[in-house]
């Protein structure tokens, strides 16, 4: 039931060689293609019929769920609302991602809203990759929204990657952290050609001793453009850090706007931001080890984007 294009997309966005073991939900061209639940992970279609609800039983440890989306149908703009309810004391990995194959001049797109309700002492690792491939010239758009609500002592790591081929992306990340919670958002975006990507992030540190760390790495090639906004708001004694680096190549443009907002006297908020070309000393070091200029550039970019 998986054709060659489907397999390639699944491999790229969810590191799947075929149908995964354990719980999964694969959505293709706006329809359910396959679903499997496990003893601890339940998946059901939501009432509105526009997405799924993934429920993880309290205490579930070391289990994973794959929920990739693939789009290969010209002219389709798929919209989903998925909810993840993560039980107390659980420790799980969720692998999402959307792969678009565009074979015609008609546009294709996917807008996914993922809402996470993370219980007490629960740990979630969320990995999401976006990729568009294909010979067609239709615009490929991906507009993901992530909403994260962390209860007491919850911990979430979000790894959000846009690998390439996406013409337009508008990402929104929102998070609210309760007491003792921690959140690491790591976003990596590569744009080229005439592509545009925008990322808006609102992280709210509500609980005492909560911690948030937002790391953004952007590579902007060709005539592409990326804009990055993040607002870190502290409502309690907490710690927050923003680190955003953009590498500009060719004629790329970038706007980076980190904002810190302390609403409590014991808040500790920091940020560091940089925009620039690949540093000469990095290139020369790698060339002095025998790499050509182009090989050195690729190696630096690969490392920077954690590939």
């Amino acid at each position: 039931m998986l054709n060659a294009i489907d397999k390639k997309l699944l491999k790229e966005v969810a590191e799947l060689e075929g149908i995964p073991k354990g719980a999964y939900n694969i959505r293709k061209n706006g329809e359910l293609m396959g679903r499997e639940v496990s003893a601890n992970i339940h998946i059901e279609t939501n009432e509105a019929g526009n997405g799924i609800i993934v429920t993880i039983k309290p205490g579930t440890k070391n289990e994973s769920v794959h929920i990739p989306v693939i789009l290969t149908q010209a002219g389709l703009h798929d919209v989903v609302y998925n909810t993840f309810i993560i039980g107390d004391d659980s420790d799980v990995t969720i692998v999402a991602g959307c792969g678009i194959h565009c074979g015609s001049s008609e546009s294709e797109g996917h807008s996914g809203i993922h809402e996470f309700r993370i219980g007490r002492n629960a740990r979630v690792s969320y990995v999401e990759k976006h990729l568009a491939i294909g010979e067609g010239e239709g615009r490929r758009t991906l507009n993901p929204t992530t909403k994260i609500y962390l209860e007491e002592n919850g911990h979430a790591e979000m790894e959000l990657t846009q690998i390439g081929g996406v013409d337009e992306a508008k990402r929104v990340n929102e998070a609210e952290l309760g007491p003792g919670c921690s959140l690491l958002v790591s976003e990596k975006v590569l744009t080229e050609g005439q592509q545009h990507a925008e990322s808006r992030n609102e992280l709210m540190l509500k609980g005492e001793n909560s911690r948030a760390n937002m790391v953004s790495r952007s590579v902007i090639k060709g005539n592409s453009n990326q804009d990055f906004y993040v607002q870190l708001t502290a409502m309690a004694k907490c710690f927050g850090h923003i680190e955003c680096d953009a590498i500009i190549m060719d004629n790329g443009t970038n706007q980076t706007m980190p904002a810190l907002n302390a609403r409590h006297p014991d808040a500790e908020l920091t940020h560091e931001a940089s925009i620039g070309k690949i540093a000469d000393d990095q290139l020369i070091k790698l060339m002095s080890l025998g790499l050509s200029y182009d090989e050195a550039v690729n190696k630096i970019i690969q490392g920077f984007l954690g590939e």
Partner: protein
Amino acid sequence: MKGHVMLELKNITFTVPGADNEAPITIIENLNYTFESGKFYAITGPNGSGKTTVAKIIMGIHSQTTGSILFEGEDISKWPVSDRAKAGIAYAFQHSARFKGLTFRDLLSISLGSDDEDKLAEVIARVGICSLDFLNKPVDAKLSGGEIKKIELATVIATNPKLAIYDEPDTGIDLWTIGPMVELLKKEKEKYGTTTIVVSHNKAFLEAADTLILLRKGKIVYNGNLEGALPMLRDLSICKFSDTCEGVADVECYR
């Protein structure tokens, strides 16, 4: 291979444009030198004498304004850095590059041309100044000055160079590591016949060298053993005119 010519610098001059409409500034002036294969050279001299510039010209990081460079008889004057590296020249930077997202393992694998775990372990053992758990360290701004210098050294040795250039290898290194580092470079020279050039002020490296080259104002003012250079080095080490010196305004100052 001892006694064979490894590298020849012929009439090397390096100038940089002067500020505004002023005349170009000469950093290296008509420098000629022949480095023999399998020997250990130390280049020393006062700050601003052109030591690092000569080293960078050999590696191709700076291009000489005039003159030519012959490596094993071949004219490499116009070769890019990568080609010189492939030919067997390696360079340890005084200020090592720091990356975001690359580990010591990544760099060492490039040097070796392989990410084979056994080969990585072998080269770590050969270098001997850092442990295996160094491999997964990100080569970023968080590394201490000493750690990054060890990584720099290892990435150079791992290329198995015919000619290794070390620019101030002891910067940031603790006192206790300098001895082993000197021994390492000597061992590399003995065991693998590596022609070694160290740019340094450190006596430990000057003592280890077969030949000492003293640069001043872009010219070689001494070439020989350390003993013969000592009177000049002492003379250069302390400025006797500090009470009357007015800095750059005193252009006649011999330093």
